[in-house]
């Protein structure tokens, strides 16, 4: 690398650049076999270009770090001996190097390490990973249209040359995505106004317009096709911060473990989509129903194990509906999404590659067969079966056959967090939105930031919203639906006040924000001595076991209730994967490089979705200090795992380790029990229930203390079973839509 080839616009001086290059090649050095290191792969070029563009805000931090490195090396880090450089690097990583910039939320090394990995493994279109050299090094084939079943056999080495996304064919022929317009002001008062253009709002709108209602959706973010970020790991993760999450970035919640502690900005591991389509674009698309006893989790537990079995700090409760009440809505939601899967139930016990034997009764089978079983999935299934469990393929809102013009899955490498390049993964945009818009009764206004729910004589009458130009508008409607993420559902109620509701709408009994639940991700990682190629196939193409979920096993004498699901998920993209390390591998140097290069294609993860019990400790409220861009308090999360999780999660982890051993793993490590708020399975906060003193809404999302106001979403959850929440959220939404139809019909009768 000569100075002449550096990007001219880079903000770093030649001396700083020299230090950066030296640092990068110590963090990710060239291989002993002559393979390139970070600088030759283009990681430093990438970072310098990014510092002149999207990362301009980090220039000062970089300067401070480079200066600290130089200072520790008698003024010139690049000129120091390698051993000296490595000592300084170790201090940098540990945060003990004098002069490092301080940031309470993360270290400077965290930031630079992430950027370095972006430069190593991003699509070459972003300026790093020159000639796909980073991908070639680890055997990642890049942006491939898809893979065949043969490609997915275990032990197979994928030899395709890495392909940048610019070379992708557009062989699927997809219809246009629906177009929406930005709000400039209110429109004629509709029958139903929905706050939030995500999956919940879109599915409700579809059901309501089908019944002849007029609907307006106000969406704070921009319009999207639903195919955003296809096959682009960098833009789907880092650059998302200026894209899909434009609203959320300003209002990331703070988090503390217990009341009385200071709260810090939470690390939202999955990001949160706040634009049209919401998380229905980025989701992993596991579309699984809850189990029958999930809806009567408290009474069933008490009946079997006694009142004492409920942990003291838990606010565990039954749901205000039964599985049978929700089944028709599960069915409708599945058909709208196009869910692939194998039906299960008791008949599936002891049968290979069929459905989940614990599955609740279904009124009809899935719309199409499950995603195929990968080599990795088969390894998991064989091992799980030999442990006495009953593996099954997870049902997914990912097509395996043509469905309503959409294309079946190609088993590419980019699914969770990515728009689907062939519309195989369901999103609001490729399912309900076009149909609902075609009715002519739905208006979607993007760029409409709802600030407050308005009431007249105690009844919800509309909302106040800001258009992009900052103008405040009032949109009226007969019924107002709040259908945003759990955080904003809660916050919007707390920030909407009138004389009758001085503590916020729905909050007469102080219930808004209580019973918050968030999924912990205490996975078990496993490295094998042959390739398992987890980078092939959608995330949800996974075999799972539910034998350790719910009350599917006898808890007598175990000291905890409920359990977790174990599944071998796919998707392993190199920017993120290069940050997944066993505890004894450092984040820099030859040890890191050698581990990752060798282990990339051979690493699997047994993902555990533990049931989290609602607890008196855990809640959402308004942060007293941190404000968003509009000067409004962000959500403050108080969350810790309880005694039940502390006993139950290691129990499930032990069994996941057993499965991994039977699969032949040569190296196994586990994540901690507490992993923090996740930003995809956050639930609770506007709990459903029959008793207004212990819940915010009824089972249809009607807010107990505010007529005309409906709140639906993950925030409605009473408990968090070991199942992905999305399908249940959609079923609750469709049921809530029926509640609105019934209420408006009753109102019309009264008026007549």
């Amino acid at each position, binding site marked *: 690398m000569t100075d002449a080839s550096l990007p001219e616009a880079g903000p770093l001086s030649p001396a700083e650049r020299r230090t950066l290059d030296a640092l990068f090649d110590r963090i990710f050095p060239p291989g002993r076999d002559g393979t390139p290191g970070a600088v030759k792969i283009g990681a430093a070029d990438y970072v310098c270009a990014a510092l002149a563009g999207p990362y301009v805000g980090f220039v000062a931090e970089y300067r401070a770090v480079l200066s600290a490195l130089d200072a520790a090396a008698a003024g010139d880090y690049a000129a120091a001996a390698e051993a000296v450089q490595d000592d300084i690097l170790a201090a940098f990583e540990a945060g003990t190097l004098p002069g490092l910039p301080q940031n309470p939320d993360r270290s400077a090394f965290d930031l630079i390490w992430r950027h370095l990995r972006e430069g190593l493994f991003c699509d070459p279109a972003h300026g790093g990973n020159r000639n796909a050299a980073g991908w070639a090094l680890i055997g990642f084939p890049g942006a491939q249209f898809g893979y065949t079943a043969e490609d997915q056999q275990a032990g197979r080495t994928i030899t395709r040359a890495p392909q940048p996304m610019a070379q992708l064919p557009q062989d699927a*022929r997809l*219809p246009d995505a629906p177009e929406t317009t930005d709000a400039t002001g209110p429109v004629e008062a509709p029958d139903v106004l929905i706050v939030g253009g995500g999956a919940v709002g879109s599915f409700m709108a579809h059901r309501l317009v089908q019944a002849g209602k007029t609907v307006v959706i106000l969406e704070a973010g921009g319009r999207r096709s639903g195919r955003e970020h296809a096959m682009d790991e960098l833009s789907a993760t880092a650059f998302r911060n200026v894209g899909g999450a434009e609203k959320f970035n300003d209002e990331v919640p703070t988090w503390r473990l217990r009341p009385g502690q200071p709260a810090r900005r939470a690390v939202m591991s999955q990001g949160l989509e706040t634009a049209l389509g919401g998380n229905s674009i980025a989701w992993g698309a596991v579309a699984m129903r809850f189990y029958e006893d999930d809806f009567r989790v408290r009474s069933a537990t008490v009946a079997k194990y006694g009142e004492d079995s409920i942990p003291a700090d838990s606010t565990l409760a039954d749901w205000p509906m039964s599985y049978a009440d929700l089944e028709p809505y599960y069915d409708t939601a599945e058909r709208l999404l196009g869910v692939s899967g194998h039906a299960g139930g008791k008949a599936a016990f002891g049968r290979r590659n069929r459905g989940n034997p614990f599955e609740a009764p279904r009124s009809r089978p899935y719309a199409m067969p499950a995603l195929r079983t990968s080599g990795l999935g088969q390894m998991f299934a064989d091992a799980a079966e030999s442990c006495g469990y009953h593996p099954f393929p997870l049902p997914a809102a990912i097509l395996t056959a043509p469905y309503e013009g959409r294309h079946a899955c190609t088993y590419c490498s980019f699914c969770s967090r990515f728009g689907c390049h062939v519309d195989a993964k369901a999103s609001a945009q490729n399912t309900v939105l076009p149909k609902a818009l075609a009715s002519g009764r739905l208006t979607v206004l993007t760029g409409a930031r709802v600030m407050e729910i308005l009431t007249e004589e105690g009844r919800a009458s509309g909302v106040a919203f800001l258009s992009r130009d900052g103008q405040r508008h009032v949109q009226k409607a007969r019924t107002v639906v709040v259908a945003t993420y759990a955080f904003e559902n809660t916050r919007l109620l707390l920030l909407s006040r009138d004389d009758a509701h001085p503590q916020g709408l729905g909050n007469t009994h102080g219930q808004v924000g209580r019973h918050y639940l968030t999924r912990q991700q205490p996975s078990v990682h496993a490295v094998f001595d042959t390739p398992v190629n987890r980078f092939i196939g959608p995330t949800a193409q996974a075999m799972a076991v539910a034998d350790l979920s719910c009350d599917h096993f006898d808890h007598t004498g175990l000291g905890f209730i409920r359990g977790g699901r174990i599944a071998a998920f796919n998707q392993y993209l190199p920017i993120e994967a290069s940050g997944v390390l066993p505890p004894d591998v450092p984040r820099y140097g030859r040890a890191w490089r050698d581990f990752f290069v060798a282990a990339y294609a051979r690493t699997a993860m047994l993902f555990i979705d533990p049931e989290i019990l609602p607890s008196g400790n855990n809640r959402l409220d308004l942060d007293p200090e941190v404000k968003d861009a509009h000067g409004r308090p962000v959500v403050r999360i108080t969350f810790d795992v309880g005694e039940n999780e502390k006993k139950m999660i290691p129990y499930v982890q032990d069994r996941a380790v057993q499965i991994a051993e039977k699969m032949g793993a040569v190296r196994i490590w586990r994540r901690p029990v507490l992993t923090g708020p996740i930003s995809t399975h956050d639930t609770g906060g506007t709990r459903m229930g029959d008793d207004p003193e212990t819940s915010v809404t009824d089972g249809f999302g009607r807010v107990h203390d505010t007529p005309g106001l409906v709140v639906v979403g993950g925030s409605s959850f009473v408990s968090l079973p070991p199942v992905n929440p999305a399908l249940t959220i959609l079923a609750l939404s469709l049921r809530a839509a029926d509640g609105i139809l019934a209420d408006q019909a009753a109102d019309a009768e009264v008026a007549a």
Partner: protein
Amino acid sequence: MTRPDVIVAGAGIIGTMIAWHLVRNGARVVLADPAQQPASASSATWASAGGLRRQGRSAADQPLTRIAAARWPGMEAELDADLEVSLGGHLHLTETEAGLEVIRARVATDRAAGLDIELVEGAHLREIAPEVTPRALGGAWTPGDGQAHPGRVARAALAAFRRAGGEARLGAPVRLTRGAAGVTGITTGPDALEAPLTIVAAGAWSLELLAGLGLTLPLRWRALTMLLSDMAVPGLLAPTVTAVGRNLSLKQLRSGQFMLGGNWMSRPTGQGLQALPVDTHMSEQWSTGVAVMPRLARQRMVQVWAGAEAQSPDGNPLVGRMSMPGLYLAAGFSNHGFQISPAVGAAVAEDVARGGHPLLAPFDPHRLDATDPDALARFHSAPILAVA
């Protein structure tokens, strides 16, 4: 833009090619389409199989075919875009002795028209297409033919049109406007645009546009069904394959997927130009593909879609000035418009400037005016379930 010289209604492959060639010749052009982008659902371009076939064409469009064929190898350079052009040839095969006569006749006719076409049999045929049915006795082979991505071509032509100074009005409803002296232009959304000449190049949608003027055309629309298989190893099938007596076109795409076309109709939904695939047609179409290439039985169907195409009673398009002043038509290219689209674009651009283009003479839009009304009625009402 100051008042345009020409308005083109329709941003499919024909409309974008005409508009691009017009601006290249120095005309001021507005291109309008209600869709947001070219080749949108459920248009003919969206559902075009993208075949670049010279053989077996009508005598009327052979000259245009040859002109276009000379340009396709350089089209990616001309449009400065990846068009997924692949020139693996076209093989029209037969499995019967009687079919061999049909093949020989095609080879003779096309060769007389100056095409480099040959009869291939036995080992030569296997070498060209190792995966086709062992029952294949022979085929008509044109090595320079191939395929491209119609959506990419139309979008690239639009981009080239814009680079050359053309103005596109996309995403707003379009209607023709009529004055005392004929067509005066269009409305696009709330805007009215006037031009001395309006070219309707809107495929099946042309029927509705002209109906707004009280004109009926000897055209009908049908939605043709396309199927796509899951991925196979790329490089299994280089040519596009059709077969005597079989309703099928079969090709392998860059991704390794197989695309199956033909003349299998979908059922109109009654909403605009939308149509839904018919199950029995889909299974017959797929099994026809398996008959021609047994390996397809190992694949799965992954996508089905249909686009509306305008068809004329004699199978040839209607291209030229209408008797109504200010109106020019270029529609009715069903099943054979994509390959000739660059030549049609060039010819129409010249015809608009100078008139009387000899290659367009066979496509006079009024040539079918004298058609027997009963025959026309039968043409319009022919059932979609009967396989054409």
